[in-house]
């Protein structure tokens, strides 16, 4: 049985790194991105390589705190610290950055980050509920498209965008398929494995290869359902839905599984929040991208009722036993929204645990007690 861990992913990352170096030597530009609202299809349609940048480690935070307030969320500080401290190999390779004005912390951090790399900000409306905000967002994508054309010296044709839309839809579909493996009575992957199997592994280059790898992994993982040893290893473990802030740092995910739970679904960026909806493949490609990306149910949007609908669907489809909400300390949007999430979860009759923490390890003892006690509730 293949174990889908950091070692497995490491090999893939090396290949991707190598392919990227070759492409860069041939003149390809690398465009760094942060949040999920930036349509990578546009970047790829310009012949550039999109890459999501590092934001998960604790160690760059002290460097970041030389410029940023201490009581800012760890994800933002880590992103900034990785960039200015030169500890993110992906950031090092970027020619420019496209960021999205999501939460207050991020958009103000981006002002400082722009000193380190040319940074172009997509001004994100705060709602997807009005025609005006859709029109505004479409205007932003048009503006960024022109910038990308200038920086790469490539004219972005509608056909090129359509081609990338089809490719990224296939990536979303295959990632979603990996998640769906956990809708069966015997969950086929742990949360940490889901994280690894569905990772794009850095630079988004030669995605066809990555899609084929994920497809192969899914084929192999399906066999687990027939293995008695595997079934015994997961039987009876409480099925957890992890929601809230991105699981960029995995300490809570790991604690949940080390304490005996199994995270069968993640409603977060990169998880079910962003892979569920496909971009329509016919019609104006930019309009289609704008519509799809603006409807991502992130807590920076108001109202954000689509997230509650999504949670209820996941709870039902994945036979969830308990919901854990992760808030990175200082993330006001997710923290405030947790009130409605708790109401929504309690209406389904399931227990809910809200964990507010940062990237440091100094609360591991208390977190472990809270998580173990929560898992005891589920038995």
């Amino acid at each position: 049985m293949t174990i889908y861990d950091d070692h497995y992913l490491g090999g893939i990352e090396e290949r991707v790194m190598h392919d990227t170096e070759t492409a860069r030597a041939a003149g390809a530009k690398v465009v760094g991105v942060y949040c999920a609202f930036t349509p990578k299809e546009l970047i790829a349609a310009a012949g550039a390589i999109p890459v999501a940048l590092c934001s998960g480690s604790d160690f760059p935070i002290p460097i970041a705190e030389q410029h940023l307030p201490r009581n800012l969320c760890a994800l933002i500080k880590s992103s900034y610290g990785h960039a200015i401290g030169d500890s993110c190999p992906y950031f090092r390779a970027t020619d420019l950055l496209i960021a999205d004005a999501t939460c207050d912390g991020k958009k103000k951090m981006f002002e400082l980050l722009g000193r380190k790399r040319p940074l172009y900000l997509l001004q994100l409306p705060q709602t997807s509920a009005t025609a005006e905000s859709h029109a505004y967002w479409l205007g932003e994508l048009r503006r960024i498209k022109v910038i990308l054309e200038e920086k790469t010296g490539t004219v972005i044709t509608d056909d090129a965008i359509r081609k990338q839309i089809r490719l990224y839809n296939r990536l979303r579909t295959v990632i979603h398929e990996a998640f769906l493996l956990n809708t069966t009575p015997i969950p086929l992957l742990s949360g940490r494995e889901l994280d690894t199997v569905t990772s794009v592994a850095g630079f988004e280059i030669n995605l066809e290869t990555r899609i084929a790898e994920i497809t192969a992994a899914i084929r192999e993982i399906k066999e687990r359902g027939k293995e008695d040893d595997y079934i015994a290893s997961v039987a009876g473990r409480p099925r957890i839905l992890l929601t809230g802030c991105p699981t960029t740092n995995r300490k809570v995910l790991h604690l949940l599984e080390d304490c005996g739970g199994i995270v069968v679904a993640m409603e977060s960026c990169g998880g079910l929040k962003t892979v569920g909806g496909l971009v329509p493949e016919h019609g104006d490609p930019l309009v289609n991208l704008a519509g799809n990306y603006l409807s991502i149910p992130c807590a920076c949007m108001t109202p954000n009722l689509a997230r509650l609908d999504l949670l209820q669907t996941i709870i039902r489809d994945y036979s969830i036993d308990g919901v854990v909400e992760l808030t990175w300390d200082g993330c006001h949007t997710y923290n405030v929204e947790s009130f409605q999430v708790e109401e929504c979860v309690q209406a389904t009759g399931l227990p809910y645990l809200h964990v507010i923490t940062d990237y440091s390890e100094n609360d591991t003892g208390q977190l472990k007690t809270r998580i173990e006690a929560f898992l005891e509730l589920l038995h």
Partner: protein
Amino acid sequence: MLSAGIDIGSRTIECVVIEDGAIREVRQTATTFDPRGQIENVLDGLSFDWIMATGYGRDLFEVAYAAKTVTEIKAYGRGARHLFPEATTILDIGGQDSKCIILGTGGKVQRFEMNDRCAAGTGKFLEVMAEALNYSLEELGPSALKAGKVLTINAMCTVFAESEVTSLISRGENREDIALGLHLAVVKRAAGMIRRLWPGGPIFFAGGVARNTCIRHLLEKDLQVPVIVPDNPQIIGALGAALLLEEGA
């Protein structure tokens, strides 16, 4: 058959041995900087057939003694129900944690809340404040009950509260009044935690801080319900662990 429960807390270790639900022996000691050594001391010469550990040191114990473990939350719930079968709301304030536990039908934990990493409003907070006011921990509560006026302490962080106490002292406030202000701050926080989960009804109060008569009095005043403190509020976790073990949980 003798079943033992051991609660390894941040400040104290308690061990309770039971037989068919009846307490046979109770031992208690300070945790100190050497919990392993203190665990050995507590268990020295104690007879029991099996043992279950709880408290923040439970994993340490699990490894060393190949014992079963349970969280304090479940253990306190079980221990409280044993002494007070009607208990639904349990407040436990220990050395560095505070918890509110709500029991449902059959005594099963229904919901709980627990402080995060910060020891604000726990035993540690009161200990540091007692020292700042030159009281022993035992004197702190009774002295606060003698206060003549109500001072508001705004800081809940142990470090900030200490500076606030220092400035109140330099302002000439008397120490009974300052002590009451500190107790009020702890109770405000604990009552807030209870109110978030509370179905109503009496509060079963356990953990070392339950020994503080002023906290108990102020809680009753704030919540307007009886606050029940068992004879030894520090053994509830160990008792609960022993009971859970005996019941095969």
